[in-house]
């Protein structure tokens, strides 16, 4: 058997393992929560049909835990895919999905939405409290408003970056414009929060990222966008392989660079914007997922994107489980966990690589 067959089977094995892990985490996600594993199962299967215990158990499983767990997986998968796309597009292993201004755009939009409605409620002494919005609000209208604002903000952030970079012709200019937009919109968000201190707490939840309030609607949106993005990204994977030889070589291979970059950025913005809108800013998943895949198996971009997507899903649903379990019945913000675990992983990676480099030098 040749090494290329081994490589293919390693990629298939990794894919299978990630799928099994995904299903296991979703199953665990249904079982873990403040009510506890045994109580819930016993209520669900042993309590009399129609009894209040059974109805409560069904409600917890179907309306809270299942959409939350599936949503966490889908958001992670979107971020993992976006991370692989960003790293391929910018030919930089440190590129992450938030690099094009989507995170800062979404943050500013959410801060503005909170300040305009939530802040106003605070300012008039709570008279509008029933309509005040917060990141933890369960109201459909409110959730749609916040996720809509976050999505619109993410897309506007990317468009602003594109405008500043004067299109998609130059990758380095795009990268710099993304950094500048991130800083400027971040400053604007801080300014909005200074004038609207009532929004701070809700905003903090958005900035830390949370899967706690993902319902079936959010799940539906993410599960519709995910296959679309994967299919579109996969269709461009050979072009991404070509791009990895440098832009001049890619152009000499006949690849239409400008439409290609525009399409990749469109997919990147859609995947990131959709995830950010539903879960807030979850750090490191998009950055770490492609790295984890590369540490397991060396593959072309087609397989990398599929595997990074699955890995992102596993990472975020795993982090969500930990966030619920570590200090149960309290919960940690999932974004804090991904930042700590992802940051730790990257530090370890840097440490390992520096050891390898010193080893080679010796």
């Amino acid at each position: 058997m040749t090494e290329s067959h081994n490589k293919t089977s390693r990629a298939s094995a990794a894919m299978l393992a990630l799928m099994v892990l995904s299903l296991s985490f979703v199953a665990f996600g249904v079982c873990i929560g403040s009510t506890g594993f045994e109580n819930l199962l016993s209520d669900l299967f042993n309590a009399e049909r129609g009894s209040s215990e059974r109805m409560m158990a069904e409600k917890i499983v179907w309306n809270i835990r299942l959409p939350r767990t599936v949503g966490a997986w889908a958001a992670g998968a979107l971020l993992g895919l976006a991370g692989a796309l960003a790293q391929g597009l910018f030919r930089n292993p440190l590129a992450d999905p938030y690099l094009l201004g989507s995170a800062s755009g979404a943050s500013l939009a959410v801060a503005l939405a909170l300040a305009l409605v939530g802040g106003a409620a605070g300012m008039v002494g709570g008279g509008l409290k029933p309509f005040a919005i917060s990141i933890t609000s369960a109201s459909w209208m409110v959730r749609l408003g916040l996720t809509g604002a976050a999505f619109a903000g993410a897309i506007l952030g990317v468009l602003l970056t594109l405008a500043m970079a004067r299109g998609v012709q130059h990758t380095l200019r795009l990268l710099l414009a993304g950094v500048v937009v991130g800083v400027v919109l971040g400053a604007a968000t801080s300014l909005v929060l200074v004038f609207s201190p009532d929004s701070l707490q809700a905003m903090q939840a958005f900035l830390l990222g949370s899967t706690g309030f993902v319902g079936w609607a959010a799940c539906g949106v993410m599960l519709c966008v995910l296959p679309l993005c994967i299919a579109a990204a996969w269709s461009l994977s050979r072009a991404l392989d070509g791009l990895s030889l440098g832009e001049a070589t890619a152009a000499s291979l006949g690849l239409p660079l400008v439409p290609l970059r525009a399409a990749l950025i469109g997919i990147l913005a859609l995947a990131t914007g959709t995830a950010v809108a539903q879960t807030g800013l979850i750090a490191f998943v998009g950055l770490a997922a492609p790295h984890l895949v590369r540490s397991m198996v060396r593959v072309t971009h087609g397989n990398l994107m599929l595997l990074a997507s699955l890995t992102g899903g596993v990472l975020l649903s795993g982090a969500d489980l930990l966030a619920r379990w570590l200090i149960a019945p309290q919960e940690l913000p999932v974004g804090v966990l991904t930042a700590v675990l992802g940051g730790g992983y990257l530090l370890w990676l840097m440490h390992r690589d520096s050891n390898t480099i010193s080893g080679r030098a010796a």
Partner: protein
Amino acid sequence: MSVEAVSASIGRARILRDVNARFRQGRWTSVVGPNGAGKSTLLKVMACLLPHSGRVTLLGKPVLEWSRRERSQTLVWLGQNEAAAEDLAAYDVAMLGRIPHQGWLAAPSAEDHAAVARALCATQAWVFRDRSLAALSGGERQRVLLARALASEAQVILMDEPLSHLDPPHQADWLATVRALVASGTTVVSVLHEISMALHADDMVIMADGGVVYEGVCGDTTTHRALEAVFDRRITVTSVGEHWITLPN
């Protein structure tokens, strides 16, 4: 292939000024000259990778009138310091040379695989075809990138510093590969800093200060004198057996 009155700039710097040169079909032309003469820029202009004024003709037709796909099937460019796709296996990199021949979503055909195998064998890279580029030495990597260019099986091959990182035995292999390509009717244009290797070509284009100062046959003594002049007579072209080499003065 020919360039007529070609000028090109990078940023505000004008690199090429009214360049005229002819690269005869089925022959190997080496482009030489001091650093900053505009050799690499000329190759990029010929590959349509830089905006330019003037006229570049490929197989009798202005290069800009070719469709992107047809042009990339006919002409291949191997750049200097080409970025390396570290994660890809050598075989996958060579397969990228087949992109111009493949449908957008189509899997590589048997013909694609055969072309890649031929190219990897020609550059002695077949043995490490399954290793990722990150695991290869500079010379091995250069041979894979050359295989990528050969896999396209284009009629015109433009190579910018193809010998960088190659040790003498592999430079000799490269020479044999180019000779075989030319014998099969391929036009090869290479920018080379190793003047002794460049003198193995059929024709030579000598450049300085963004222009062509001389065009001629490599074995011609007039070419040798022009070569010595462009390097301020700090080199001498001399013969060793049937070959010409340069020695520093």
